[in-house]
């Protein structure tokens, strides 16, 4: 979709953004910078289905933090500090987010002039002016002072800390959790991420645009279809092109298969953590059905290399009948299993009133996806922003109001059913025609493109800028987990340590999508 670019002076930025966010259901999309010489704040208007990118030129690397007026800005400002060296003043708890002590303090990957060379050695711009490449070599020199990280200290009689990670006990991505507890009760959870930071956003500006999509899909492959779709929409909007109806349908089918597969995975994980193994193993099997649908559609269990700028790579028309049958059967087999799951007293007891997030904090921190909708937030990007057949085709929004683990499970169960039903409908209504249009070879100059997609975790944003030569100068990705990690930290407060795995699973967050 097209994004309107407007300028707002730095001195008026906080007030302007605050006012915008307090009117007619506007939302904060993301806050970042293009190359460290400006701040960009993307404000979405879901009701109109539009977005405005507010740019504020910077003279120095300091700016006034938005956090005192807009809480959800806190995470973005931490990331900007790491990637551009921009320092927010009055940020209540500024600390590094992506780059920790392993990286030299001079490393500012996305700042203008920083060059990441091809053979594993990198040079950082050490100087504050940001002109040209500096000469601090990154080889093994760790500047502990520059990358200090102090978790919040909770003090008091009997309070102790449980550090967990970065390597976890199960088969999941790495991250560090630090619980401050009294007895069995969690007082505070500090979440430290960045362990799978691979420099994806930087690399996206270095590769030719036609090869960007492979990297985008591999950034967080459990959302490969959603990432590929957001990328494609962003690129198509740069060219001001739309894709054939058939492609829109096939893309939506792919997106909904991914949603179904991941919701099954998350619900199965929840049952597993409760110890309800009959359900978790059944869900493991049923996820296999969803993955075979994915494989039939795209040739890949995780739907890699299917959705691309211009449409879809190939037209899987011969397989669609089988996929429709599988979707129908899967939907039928899930119904009794979900009834067993939700009617089990013990399972309900483990989920009810556990890991609550209030509607107010949900709004303040901008939680998205099932996590937001479990706390009464109605926002679902499929209702508002153009991607696939949405918002033309309306899907029912699953909303719960209790904000606990059970609500998040219920939202997923309802969405899962809708997705499978939708897949059948879309296959029935598939239009004739081509599924791919050719796009020009070079990107337009000085343009901005935006893609917003409701991934299985919630709103995913890709924002692309090109420079005066038509090269991609900035590729910003906002994974839904960026909003929702804070939600997890809120949810576990005053809950038992032993309920943490459940709370965690009920959010089902991505580390790699956050770290990039």
């Amino acid at each position, binding site marked *: 979709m097209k994004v309107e670019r407007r300028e707002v002076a730095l001195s008026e930025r906080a007030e302007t953004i605050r006012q915008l966010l307090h009117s007619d259901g506007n939302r904060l999309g993301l806050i970042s910078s293009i190359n460290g010489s400006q701040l960009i704040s993307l404000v979405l208007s879901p009701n109109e289905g539009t977005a405005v990118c507010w740019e504020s030129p910077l003279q120095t690397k300091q700016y006034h933090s938005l956090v005192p007026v807009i809480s959800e800005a806190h995470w973005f400002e931490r990331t900007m500090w790491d990637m551009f060296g921009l320092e927010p003043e009055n940020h209540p708890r500024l600390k590094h987010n992506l780059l920790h002590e392993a990286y030299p303090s001079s490393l500012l*990957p996305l700042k203008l002039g920083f060059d990441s060379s091809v053979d594993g050695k990198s040079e950082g711009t050490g100087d504050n002016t940001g002109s040209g490449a500096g000469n601090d070599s990154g080889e093994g020199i760790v500047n502990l002072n520059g990358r200090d990280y102090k978790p919040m200290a909770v003090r008091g009689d009997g309070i102790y800390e449980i550090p967990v990670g970065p390597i976890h006990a199960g088969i999941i*991505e790495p991250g560090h959790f630090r619980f401050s507890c009294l007895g069995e009760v969690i007082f505070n959870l500090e979440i430290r991420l960045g362990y799978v930071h691979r420099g994806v956003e930087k690399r996206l500006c270095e590769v030719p645009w036609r090869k960007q999509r492979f990297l985008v899909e591999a950034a967080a492959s459990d959302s490969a279809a959603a990432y590929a779709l957001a990328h494609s929409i962003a690129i198509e909007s740069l060219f001001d092109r739309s894709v054939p109806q058939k492609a829109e349908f096939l893309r939506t089918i792919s997106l909904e298969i991914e949603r179904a597969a991941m919701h099954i995975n998350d619900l199965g994980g929840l049952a597993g953590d409760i110890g309800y193994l009959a359900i978790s193993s059944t869900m493991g099997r049923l996820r296999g059905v969803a993955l075979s649908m994915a494989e039939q559609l795209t040739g890949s269990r995780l739907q890699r290399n299917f959705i691309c700028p211009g449409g879809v790579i190939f037209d899987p028309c011969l397989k669609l009948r089988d996929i429709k049958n599988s979707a129908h059967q899967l939907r039928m087999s899930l119904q009794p299993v979900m009834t067993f799951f939700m009617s089990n007293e013990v399972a309900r007891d483990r989920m009810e009133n556990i890991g609550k997030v209030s509607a107010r904090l949900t709004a303040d921190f901008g939680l998205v996806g099932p996590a937001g909708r479990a706390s009464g937030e109605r926002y679902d990007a499929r209702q508002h922003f153009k991607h696939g057949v949405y918002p033309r085709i309306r899907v029912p929004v699953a909303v719960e109001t209790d904000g606990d683990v059970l609500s998040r499970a219920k939202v997923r169960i309802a969405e899962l059913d809708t997705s499978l039903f939708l897949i059948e409908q879309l296959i029935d209504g598939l239009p004739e025609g081509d599924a791919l249009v050719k796009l020009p070879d070079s990107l337009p100059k000085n343009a901005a493109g935006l893609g917003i997609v409701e991934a299985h975790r919630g709103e995913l944003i890709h924002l692309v800028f090109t420079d005066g030569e038509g090269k991609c100068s900035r590729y910003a990705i906002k994974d839904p987990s960026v909003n929702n990690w804070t939600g997890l930290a809120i949810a576990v407060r005053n809950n038992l340590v032993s309920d943490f795995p459940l709370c965690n699973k009920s959010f089902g967050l991505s580390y790699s999508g956050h770290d990039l």
Partner: protein
Amino acid sequence: MLRLLGYLLNQGVVTSKDYCAPLEDGLGLPEFSDRACAGSQCNECRSVCPTGAITVDSGENGGEVHLDLGACIGCSMCVRSCPQETLVNSKKTAVARLSRDDLVISNVDRKVPLSLSRSTESKSLFYRSIACRVVSTGCSACDLEVAACGNSIFDMERFGIHVVASPRFADVLLVTGPVPKAMHDALKSCYEAMAEPRRVIAVGTCATSGGLHRGGYAEANGVDSLLPVDLYIPGCPPHPWSIIDGVKKVMDGRQA
């Protein structure tokens, strides 16, 4: 409760009996057919490959293509673009190799076809069971596939493969992802905590070579830049069968 048991019994046995069966709908990694390559003036496959896994030279009898499966993400763009059908989708899952060099295949010298598994005569230390510690440093797809090995369809436990929660109990370290800089120390300390004899398996293209992330400032260049790797399982992500087959090759391997 009884109704649930009834439901479960009704599902029957879903475990797949076909060990490493060819993929039906999946494409698998590319391989070479018998058909000759048009040579370096064509170069189509090389120019579309997102990871630089392919080189094309002109030889005596047409083109000589080298393909590094360890860098390949299986996107199949080379297969789609090849006008000669020299490159085809292998649809195979037994893709693990003991050395990095073995992952480089060529249309001229095809001594190691994709499906070959290296079995050895005498029994190894881990031949009955093997305990795996999984360390993830990647995009979670490889982890999902490792986890899928444990579901009732693939059921790796029937082959004696277990996942354990501590390196102290582990015989083999399964590493997924390209190991970016922030994970270097954590991964090394995990390896150090394992008792000898121990093995390391690089699961996935990222772990094998860094894949798409190789060469960036995050120094995410794969496992063997940090630890000695005993087996590589290419694929992005590898199929659960590829992972099971890889672990079994380590179980069957001799050098204790």
